[in-house]
Protein backbone atom coordinates (compact mmCIF):
# COMPACT_ATOMS: atom_id res chain seq x y z
CA UNK A 1 0.00 0.00 0.00
CA UNK A 2 1.62 3.32 -1.04
CA UNK A 3 1.89 6.27 1.35
CA UNK A 4 -1.39 7.96 1.01
CA UNK A 5 -4.15 10.33 1.91
CA UNK A 6 -6.98 9.45 4.25
CA UNK A 7 -9.31 8.77 1.29
CA UNK A 8 -6.79 6.37 -0.19
CA UNK A 9 -6.64 4.46 3.11
CA UNK A 10 -10.42 4.45 3.46
CA UNK A 11 -10.88 2.88 0.02
CA UNK A 12 -8.28 0.23 0.83
CA UNK A 13 -9.78 -0.54 4.26
CA UNK A 14 -13.32 -0.83 2.91
CA UNK A 15 -12.44 -2.96 -0.10
CA UNK A 16 -9.74 -5.33 1.19
CA UNK A 17 -11.98 -7.54 3.43
CA UNK A 18 -14.23 -8.15 0.43
CA UNK A 19 -11.94 -8.13 -2.59
CA UNK A 20 -8.55 -8.96 -1.03
CA UNK A 21 -5.58 -6.69 -0.47
CA UNK A 22 -4.15 -6.90 -4.01
CA UNK A 23 -7.48 -6.14 -5.68
CA UNK A 24 -8.15 -3.33 -3.19
CA UNK A 25 -4.75 -1.79 -3.93
CA UNK A 26 -5.34 -2.03 -7.66
CA UNK A 27 -8.78 -0.50 -7.20
CA UNK A 28 -7.15 2.49 -5.49
CA UNK A 29 -4.86 2.87 -8.50
CA UNK A 30 -7.83 2.70 -10.88
CA UNK A 31 -9.62 5.34 -8.83
CA UNK A 32 -6.52 7.54 -8.93
CA UNK A 33 -6.19 7.17 -12.70
CA UNK A 34 -9.77 8.31 -13.02
CA UNK A 35 -9.07 11.36 -10.83
CA UNK A 36 -5.68 11.86 -12.57
CA UNK A 37 -3.86 12.02 -9.27
CA UNK A 38 -1.34 10.04 -7.24
CA UNK A 39 -2.81 8.05 -4.33
CA UNK A 40 -1.27 10.43 -1.78
CA UNK A 41 -2.93 13.41 -3.45
CA UNK A 42 -6.53 12.18 -3.24
CA UNK A 43 -8.80 14.51 -1.28
CA UNK A 44 -12.50 14.43 -0.36
CA UNK A 45 -13.09 16.70 -3.36
CA UNK A 46 -12.10 13.79 -5.61
CA UNK A 47 -14.82 11.52 -4.21
CA UNK A 48 -17.27 11.86 -7.15
CA UNK A 49 -14.54 10.86 -9.63
CA UNK A 50 -13.29 8.06 -7.39
CA UNK A 51 -16.76 6.63 -6.93
CA UNK A 52 -17.52 6.83 -10.63
CA UNK A 53 -14.25 4.99 -11.30
CA UNK A 54 -14.91 2.21 -8.81
CA UNK A 55 -18.59 1.60 -9.52
CA UNK A 56 -18.36 -0.55 -12.73
CA UNK A 57 -15.69 -2.79 -11.25
CA UNK A 58 -17.53 -3.27 -7.96
CA UNK A 59 -20.81 -3.85 -9.77
CA UNK A 60 -19.23 -6.65 -11.81
CA UNK A 61 -17.44 -8.31 -8.92
CA UNK A 62 -19.99 -7.89 -6.13
CA UNK A 63 -23.31 -6.89 -7.67
CA UNK A 64 -25.27 -3.64 -7.78
CA UNK A 65 -26.66 -3.62 -4.24
CA UNK A 66 -23.45 -4.46 -2.45
CA UNK A 67 -21.48 -2.06 -4.67
CA UNK A 68 -23.88 0.76 -3.75
CA UNK A 69 -23.48 -0.02 -0.02
CA UNK A 70 -19.70 -0.06 -0.29
CA UNK A 71 -19.56 3.21 -2.20
CA UNK A 72 -21.83 4.82 0.39
CA UNK A 73 -19.45 3.59 3.06
CA UNK A 74 -16.45 5.08 1.23
CA UNK A 75 -18.35 8.35 0.78
CA UNK A 76 -19.31 8.49 4.46
CA UNK A 77 -15.85 7.65 5.76
CA UNK A 78 -13.77 9.50 3.17
CA UNK A 79 -15.94 12.57 2.64
CA UNK A 80 -15.46 15.98 4.25
CA UNK A 81 -15.72 15.87 8.06
Amino acid at each position, binding site marked *: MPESSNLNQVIFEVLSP*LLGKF*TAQKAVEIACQRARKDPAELTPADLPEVIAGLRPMLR*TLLGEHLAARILEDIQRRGGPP
Partner: protein
Amino acid sequence: MSRTRLALGLLLATSLAATALFAGLALGVSDRAGLLVARGLFLATLGVELAALGLAFAVRARFQPSEPNRRIWTLFAVFLVVRLLAQLRLASLYFDLVPGFVTGSPALFLFYTAGLRYLYTLSDLAFAAALGVAIHAWRATGLPFRVLGRDFALMALVGGLAVATWALAGNLTFLSEEFRNVAARQMQIFRLVAVSLGTLVACLCLAVRRFAVQMGGGALAGVWSAVVVAGIAHAASFLALGALSQRWQTGAEFFEQLCLFVFAASFLLAILRQRELTRGG
Protein backbone atom coordinates in the same frame (compact mmCIF):
# COMPACT_ATOMS: atom_id res chain seq x y z
CA MET B 1 -19.96 -19.71 14.95
CA SER B 2 -21.37 -18.66 11.55
CA ARG B 3 -23.73 -20.91 9.62
CA THR B 4 -21.08 -21.32 6.94
CA ARG B 5 -18.52 -22.65 9.42
CA LEU B 6 -21.11 -24.90 11.02
CA ALA B 7 -22.02 -26.31 7.59
CA LEU B 8 -18.33 -26.82 6.75
CA GLY B 9 -17.78 -28.68 10.04
CA LEU B 10 -20.83 -30.90 9.51
CA LEU B 11 -19.85 -31.75 5.95
CA LEU B 12 -16.25 -32.54 6.91
CA ALA B 13 -17.45 -34.72 9.80
CA THR B 14 -19.84 -36.56 7.45
CA SER B 15 -17.02 -37.23 4.95
CA LEU B 16 -14.71 -38.57 7.65
CA ALA B 17 -17.42 -40.66 9.32
CA ALA B 18 -18.51 -42.17 5.99
CA THR B 19 -14.90 -43.02 5.09
CA ALA B 20 -14.26 -44.65 8.48
CA LEU B 21 -17.55 -46.57 8.31
CA PHE B 22 -16.84 -47.71 4.77
CA ALA B 23 -13.31 -48.85 5.65
CA GLY B 24 -14.60 -50.72 8.69
CA LEU B 25 -17.46 -52.45 6.90
CA ALA B 26 -15.87 -53.12 3.51
CA LEU B 27 -12.61 -54.42 4.94
CA GLY B 28 -13.98 -56.00 8.14
CA VAL B 29 -17.40 -57.35 7.11
CA SER B 30 -18.11 -57.52 3.36
CA ASP B 31 -18.08 -55.57 0.12
CA ARG B 32 -21.87 -55.55 0.19
CA ALA B 33 -21.87 -53.77 3.55
CA GLY B 34 -19.39 -51.26 2.12
CA LEU B 35 -21.68 -50.69 -0.85
CA LEU B 36 -24.48 -49.73 1.56
CA VAL B 37 -22.26 -46.97 2.92
CA ALA B 38 -21.57 -45.76 -0.64
CA ARG B 39 -25.32 -45.67 -1.31
CA GLY B 40 -25.91 -43.84 1.97
CA LEU B 41 -23.32 -41.26 0.94
CA PHE B 42 -25.08 -40.95 -2.41
CA LEU B 43 -28.31 -40.05 -0.57
CA ALA B 44 -26.43 -37.56 1.61
CA THR B 45 -24.97 -35.98 -1.55
CA LEU B 46 -28.47 -35.74 -2.99
CA GLY B 47 -29.63 -33.92 0.16
CA VAL B 48 -26.73 -31.47 -0.01
CA GLU B 49 -27.41 -30.80 -3.71
CA LEU B 50 -31.07 -30.14 -2.95
CA ALA B 51 -30.13 -27.62 -0.24
CA ALA B 52 -27.61 -26.01 -2.60
CA LEU B 53 -30.26 -25.66 -5.30
CA GLY B 54 -32.68 -23.76 -3.05
CA LEU B 55 -29.94 -21.43 -1.81
CA ALA B 56 -28.56 -20.86 -5.33
CA PHE B 57 -31.93 -19.48 -6.45
CA ALA B 58 -31.99 -17.21 -3.39
CA VAL B 59 -28.50 -15.88 -4.23
CA ARG B 60 -29.44 -15.41 -7.89
CA ALA B 61 -32.44 -13.30 -6.90
CA ARG B 62 -30.13 -10.78 -5.21
CA PHE B 63 -28.68 -9.63 -8.54
CA GLN B 64 -30.29 -7.44 -11.21
CA PRO B 65 -30.99 -9.04 -14.62
CA SER B 66 -28.33 -6.89 -16.32
CA GLU B 67 -25.52 -7.90 -13.96
CA PRO B 68 -22.87 -10.51 -14.85
CA ASN B 69 -23.42 -12.14 -11.44
CA ARG B 70 -27.03 -12.78 -12.40
CA ARG B 71 -25.90 -14.69 -15.51
CA ILE B 72 -23.33 -16.62 -13.48
CA TRP B 73 -25.79 -17.64 -10.77
CA THR B 74 -28.52 -18.45 -13.32
CA LEU B 75 -26.09 -20.88 -14.97
CA PHE B 76 -25.17 -22.34 -11.57
CA ALA B 77 -28.88 -22.80 -10.81
CA VAL B 78 -29.43 -24.50 -14.19
CA PHE B 79 -26.43 -26.71 -13.47
CA LEU B 80 -27.92 -27.76 -10.13
CA VAL B 81 -31.48 -28.32 -11.48
CA VAL B 82 -30.33 -30.52 -14.37
CA ARG B 83 -27.84 -32.35 -12.16
CA LEU B 84 -30.56 -33.03 -9.59
CA LEU B 85 -32.76 -34.57 -12.30
CA ALA B 86 -29.83 -36.78 -13.33
CA GLN B 87 -29.24 -37.76 -9.72
CA LEU B 88 -32.92 -38.62 -9.18
CA ARG B 89 -32.77 -40.86 -12.24
CA LEU B 90 -29.71 -42.59 -10.80
CA ALA B 91 -31.44 -42.95 -7.41
CA SER B 92 -34.37 -44.68 -9.12
CA LEU B 93 -31.92 -47.16 -10.69
CA TYR B 94 -29.99 -47.74 -7.46
CA PHE B 95 -33.08 -48.33 -5.33
CA ASP B 96 -35.34 -50.10 -7.89
CA LEU B 97 -37.72 -47.18 -8.17
CA VAL B 98 -37.88 -46.97 -11.97
CA PRO B 99 -41.53 -46.44 -13.01
CA GLY B 100 -43.31 -49.54 -14.35
CA PHE B 101 -44.10 -48.01 -17.77
CA VAL B 102 -40.34 -47.48 -18.27
CA THR B 103 -39.26 -50.99 -17.27
CA GLY B 104 -42.11 -52.42 -19.37
CA SER B 105 -40.72 -50.99 -22.61
CA PRO B 106 -37.19 -52.09 -23.66
CA ALA B 107 -36.73 -49.00 -25.87
CA LEU B 108 -37.88 -46.63 -23.13
CA PHE B 109 -35.74 -48.40 -20.54
CA LEU B 110 -32.69 -48.12 -22.79
CA PHE B 111 -33.37 -44.40 -23.20
CA TYR B 112 -33.84 -44.08 -19.42
CA THR B 113 -30.56 -45.81 -18.61
CA ALA B 114 -28.36 -44.74 -21.55
CA GLY B 115 -29.93 -41.54 -22.92
CA LEU B 116 -30.86 -39.69 -19.77
CA ARG B 117 -27.38 -40.04 -18.33
CA TYR B 118 -26.50 -37.16 -20.67
CA LEU B 119 -28.33 -34.92 -18.22
CA TYR B 120 -24.98 -34.92 -16.40
CA THR B 121 -23.36 -33.65 -19.60
CA LEU B 122 -25.89 -30.84 -19.91
CA SER B 123 -25.39 -29.85 -16.28
CA ASP B 124 -21.60 -29.84 -16.71
CA LEU B 125 -21.98 -27.58 -19.74
CA ALA B 126 -23.90 -25.09 -17.59
CA PHE B 127 -21.14 -25.26 -14.93
CA ALA B 128 -18.44 -24.64 -17.54
CA ALA B 129 -20.46 -21.76 -19.02
CA ALA B 130 -20.83 -20.15 -15.56
CA LEU B 131 -17.07 -20.32 -15.04
CA GLY B 132 -16.48 -18.90 -18.52
CA VAL B 133 -18.83 -15.96 -17.88
CA ALA B 134 -17.11 -15.27 -14.54
CA ILE B 135 -13.63 -15.30 -16.11
CA HIS B 136 -14.76 -13.02 -18.94
CA ALA B 137 -16.50 -10.59 -16.57
CA TRP B 138 -13.54 -10.33 -14.20
CA ARG B 139 -11.08 -9.71 -16.99
CA ALA B 140 -13.36 -6.98 -18.33
CA THR B 141 -13.02 -5.00 -15.08
CA GLY B 142 -9.52 -3.87 -16.02
CA LEU B 143 -8.01 -5.56 -12.96
CA PRO B 144 -4.80 -7.46 -13.75
CA PHE B 145 -6.19 -11.01 -13.54
CA ARG B 146 -4.13 -13.35 -15.68
CA VAL B 147 -3.40 -17.06 -16.01
CA LEU B 148 0.30 -17.92 -15.55
CA GLY B 149 2.52 -20.42 -17.36
CA ARG B 150 2.45 -22.83 -14.43
CA ASP B 151 -1.37 -22.86 -14.61
CA PHE B 152 -1.18 -24.00 -18.21
CA ALA B 153 1.30 -26.70 -17.14
CA LEU B 154 -1.18 -27.82 -14.48
CA MET B 155 -3.96 -27.84 -17.06
CA ALA B 156 -1.81 -30.08 -19.29
CA LEU B 157 -1.29 -32.40 -16.30
CA VAL B 158 -5.05 -32.54 -15.67
CA GLY B 159 -5.54 -33.37 -19.36
CA GLY B 160 -3.00 -36.19 -19.04
CA LEU B 161 -4.79 -37.57 -16.00
CA ALA B 162 -8.06 -37.47 -17.95
CA VAL B 163 -6.49 -39.52 -20.75
CA ALA B 164 -5.19 -42.02 -18.15
CA THR B 165 -8.66 -42.24 -16.62
CA TRP B 166 -10.20 -42.80 -19.99
CA ALA B 167 -7.75 -45.63 -20.63
CA LEU B 168 -8.44 -47.16 -17.20
CA ALA B 169 -12.20 -46.89 -17.65
CA GLY B 170 -12.21 -49.46 -20.45
CA ASN B 171 -13.15 -52.29 -18.11
CA LEU B 172 -15.87 -50.65 -16.09
CA THR B 173 -18.86 -52.37 -17.62
CA PHE B 174 -20.79 -54.54 -15.20
CA LEU B 175 -24.17 -54.63 -16.92
CA SER B 176 -26.03 -57.79 -17.83
CA GLU B 177 -24.70 -60.01 -20.65
CA GLU B 178 -27.54 -59.41 -23.15
CA PHE B 179 -27.00 -55.65 -23.16
CA ARG B 180 -23.26 -55.88 -22.80
CA ASN B 181 -21.99 -54.89 -26.25
CA VAL B 182 -24.42 -52.07 -26.95
CA ALA B 183 -24.35 -50.84 -23.35
CA ALA B 184 -20.56 -51.01 -23.19
CA ARG B 185 -20.26 -48.95 -26.35
CA GLN B 186 -22.74 -46.40 -25.06
CA MET B 187 -20.93 -46.22 -21.73
CA GLN B 188 -17.59 -45.67 -23.50
CA ILE B 189 -19.00 -42.76 -25.49
CA PHE B 190 -20.62 -41.26 -22.40
CA ARG B 191 -17.37 -41.54 -20.42
CA LEU B 192 -15.41 -39.91 -23.23
CA VAL B 193 -17.83 -36.97 -23.21
CA ALA B 194 -17.95 -36.84 -19.40
CA VAL B 195 -14.18 -36.98 -18.95
CA SER B 196 -13.65 -34.31 -21.65
CA LEU B 197 -16.15 -31.97 -20.03
CA GLY B 198 -14.81 -32.74 -16.55
CA THR B 199 -11.33 -31.80 -17.80
CA LEU B 200 -12.64 -28.56 -19.28
CA VAL B 201 -14.34 -27.68 -15.97
CA ALA B 202 -11.16 -28.52 -14.03
CA CYS B 203 -9.05 -26.32 -16.34
CA LEU B 204 -11.48 -23.41 -16.00
CA CYS B 205 -11.35 -23.95 -12.22
CA LEU B 206 -7.56 -23.66 -12.33
CA ALA B 207 -7.89 -20.30 -14.08
CA VAL B 208 -10.44 -19.12 -11.51
CA ARG B 209 -8.15 -20.34 -8.72
CA ARG B 210 -5.32 -18.20 -10.10
CA PHE B 211 -7.60 -15.15 -10.15
CA ALA B 212 -8.67 -15.86 -6.54
CA VAL B 213 -5.00 -16.06 -5.50
CA GLN B 214 -4.30 -12.79 -7.32
CA MET B 215 -6.99 -11.10 -5.22
CA GLY B 216 -4.86 -11.60 -2.11
CA GLY B 217 -7.61 -12.94 0.16
CA GLY B 218 -11.02 -11.44 0.88
CA ALA B 219 -14.57 -12.78 0.98
CA LEU B 220 -15.01 -12.98 -2.80
CA ALA B 221 -11.89 -15.13 -3.16
CA GLY B 222 -13.38 -17.39 -0.44
CA VAL B 223 -16.52 -17.92 -2.52
CA TRP B 224 -14.60 -18.80 -5.65
CA SER B 225 -12.03 -20.95 -3.90
CA ALA B 226 -14.92 -23.16 -2.74
CA VAL B 227 -16.25 -23.31 -6.33
CA VAL B 228 -12.76 -24.35 -7.48
CA VAL B 229 -12.59 -27.16 -4.88
CA ALA B 230 -16.03 -28.31 -6.08
CA GLY B 231 -14.93 -28.39 -9.73
CA ILE B 232 -11.71 -30.25 -8.97
CA ALA B 233 -13.51 -32.81 -6.76
CA HIS B 234 -16.05 -33.32 -9.55
CA ALA B 235 -13.25 -34.07 -12.02
CA ALA B 236 -11.46 -36.26 -9.45
CA SER B 237 -14.55 -38.49 -9.16
CA PHE B 238 -13.86 -39.79 -12.71
CA LEU B 239 -10.27 -40.47 -11.77
CA ALA B 240 -11.23 -42.40 -8.61
CA LEU B 241 -13.69 -44.53 -10.57
CA GLY B 242 -11.26 -45.17 -13.41
CA ALA B 243 -8.27 -45.90 -11.19
CA LEU B 244 -9.98 -48.36 -8.81
CA SER B 245 -12.75 -50.08 -10.74
CA GLN B 246 -10.63 -52.84 -12.26
CA ARG B 247 -9.34 -53.98 -8.86
CA TRP B 248 -12.11 -53.08 -6.41
CA GLN B 249 -15.55 -52.18 -7.74
CA THR B 250 -17.08 -51.32 -4.34
CA GLY B 251 -14.10 -49.15 -3.43
CA ALA B 252 -14.32 -47.42 -6.80
CA GLU B 253 -17.99 -46.64 -6.24
CA PHE B 254 -17.37 -45.38 -2.70
CA PHE B 255 -14.43 -43.12 -3.55
CA GLU B 256 -16.22 -41.76 -6.61
CA GLN B 257 -19.15 -40.97 -4.36
CA LEU B 258 -16.89 -39.43 -1.71
CA CYS B 259 -15.44 -37.07 -4.37
CA LEU B 260 -18.97 -36.18 -5.44
CA PHE B 261 -19.95 -35.52 -1.81
CA VAL B 262 -16.93 -33.20 -1.45
CA PHE B 263 -18.01 -31.53 -4.70
CA ALA B 264 -21.59 -31.00 -3.44
CA ALA B 265 -20.39 -29.85 0.00
CA SER B 266 -17.90 -27.37 -1.49
CA PHE B 267 -20.52 -26.00 -3.84
CA LEU B 268 -22.93 -25.55 -0.93
CA LEU B 269 -20.16 -23.80 0.98
CA ALA B 270 -19.56 -21.44 -1.97
CA ILE B 271 -23.26 -20.57 -2.05
CA LEU B 272 -23.37 -19.97 1.71
CA ARG B 273 -20.30 -17.72 1.48
CA GLN B 274 -21.82 -15.79 -1.43
CA ARG B 275 -25.02 -15.38 0.56
CA GLU B 276 -23.09 -14.04 3.55
CA LEU B 277 -21.16 -11.72 1.27
CA THR B 278 -24.23 -10.25 -0.41
CA ARG B 279 -26.06 -9.95 2.90
CA GLY B 280 -23.29 -8.57 5.06
CA GLY B 281 -21.08 -6.53 2.76
